[in-house]
């Protein structure tokens, strides 16, 4: 695939921002953007206009709340829909986050009918991601599935950049599970902890191999 010129990319920048390019055209333009900050900036301006166009559309309330059917559809097929109040407490603990991180909230989990206060039952675990000086810089949430699914969220103190995510087993052996990018002070990653069956901790590791923060799951 040849790399198009800046002139060609600038002509197509509005279409790119609107999502109006065909797949091959889009791939060509995006390849150019990777190495051209000035074209990136221009596309960013058009993208801002494109976002604003969607902001024009008025909000509307559906006749029924969408949470119940969506939550029902999220249940794995064939699995019992058992729900436990204990899990609700775990979920609440998961998301009753510390003020210092800016990750903040108390959530009330409900069952599919919208009337109760229970949550899904997977062995949900949660822990703060803690950096130097015991600063909480984010959160990690894991499910009880096999292989374990993890969601890591960082939004405080960690400098922008790419970080390796390593899962540690009970023996302290670390295995890479993914890469988390922090941009604008924030980053999220979710995926399976495939190499480690039962991770007891997850670490964010910088390019130099330093552990930036750690979440203790067990």
């Amino acid at each position, binding site marked *: 695939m040849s790399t198009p010129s800046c002139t060609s990319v600038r*002509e197509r920048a*509005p*279409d790119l921002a*609107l*999502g*109006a390019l*065909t797949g091959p055209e889009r791939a060509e333009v995006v390849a150019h953007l990777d190495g051209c900050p000035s074209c990136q900036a221009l596309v960013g301006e*058009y*993208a*801002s*206009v*494109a*976002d*604003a*166009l*969607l*902001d*024009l*559309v*008025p*909000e*509307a*309330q*559906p006749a*029924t*709340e*969408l*949470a119940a*059917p*969506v939550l029902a*559809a*999220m249940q794995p097929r064939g699995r019992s829909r058992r729900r436990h109040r204990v899990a*609700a407490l775990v*979920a609440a603990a*998961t*998301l009753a*986050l510390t*003020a210092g991180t800016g*990750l*903040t*909230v108390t*959530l*009330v*989990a*409900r069952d599919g009918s919208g009337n109760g206060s*229970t*949550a*899904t039952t997977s062995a*949900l675990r949660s822990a703060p991601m803690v950096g130097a000086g015991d600063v909480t810089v984010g*959160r990690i*949430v894991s499910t009880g599935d096999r292989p374990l*699914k993890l*969601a890591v*969220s960082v*939004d405080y103190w960690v400098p922008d950049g790419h970080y390796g995510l390593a899962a540690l087993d009970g023996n302290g052996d670390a295995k890479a599970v993914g890469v988390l990018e922090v941009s*604008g002070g*924030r*980053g*999220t990653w*979710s995926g399976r902890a495939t190499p480690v069956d039962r991770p007891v901790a997850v670490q964010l590791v910088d390019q130099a191999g330093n552990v930036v923060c750690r979440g203790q799951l067990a």
Partner: protein
Amino acid sequence: MWRLTDEALLAGFSVGDAGAAETFIARFQSRVYGIALAITHDARLAEDLAQEAFLRAWRHAETFDPRRGSVATWLIVITRNLAVDAMRTQPRSEFLDPDELEWLAPPARETDPGDATVRASDVDWLRRALDDVPDEQRRAVVLAGVLGFTAQDVAEHEHIPLGTAKSRIRLAMDKLRHAQADAEPAR
């Protein structure tokens, strides 16, 4: 009141946490449903599409890239694309005509300076700018930017050559980009 960031909520939603899911959906459902309804004009279909949009967000949360925009924008684009795909099975005549979208109407240019309660919306600049764009360009950019038409779709819908459709979209986008830059200090 403590409040999770959109990104953190999405992370919780992605691993199937019920509380995070419910809060995420409550936070965005009126925008998601609003987009689906605006494109389809069918309440039942819009609800189905909104549900599907949330399920796609749950399944594909790892595709969210904060460099490319906010969680809200990512979710809205998922919804718009679903709605546009759904409408592709419909005759072209079923699509809304951009000239009939009341919410594109420009705000009043003059407001009573004595009325302190009148506050400009964040997108008033855009409504005004669209009002200043020639009709054929406004139609093209709304079809592409709101209703998700490709340039080829715009050409077919407007019965014009593809090159003309692309020109109209680009000219309109360029005017809106400049209008946004001009409005920036005032916002």
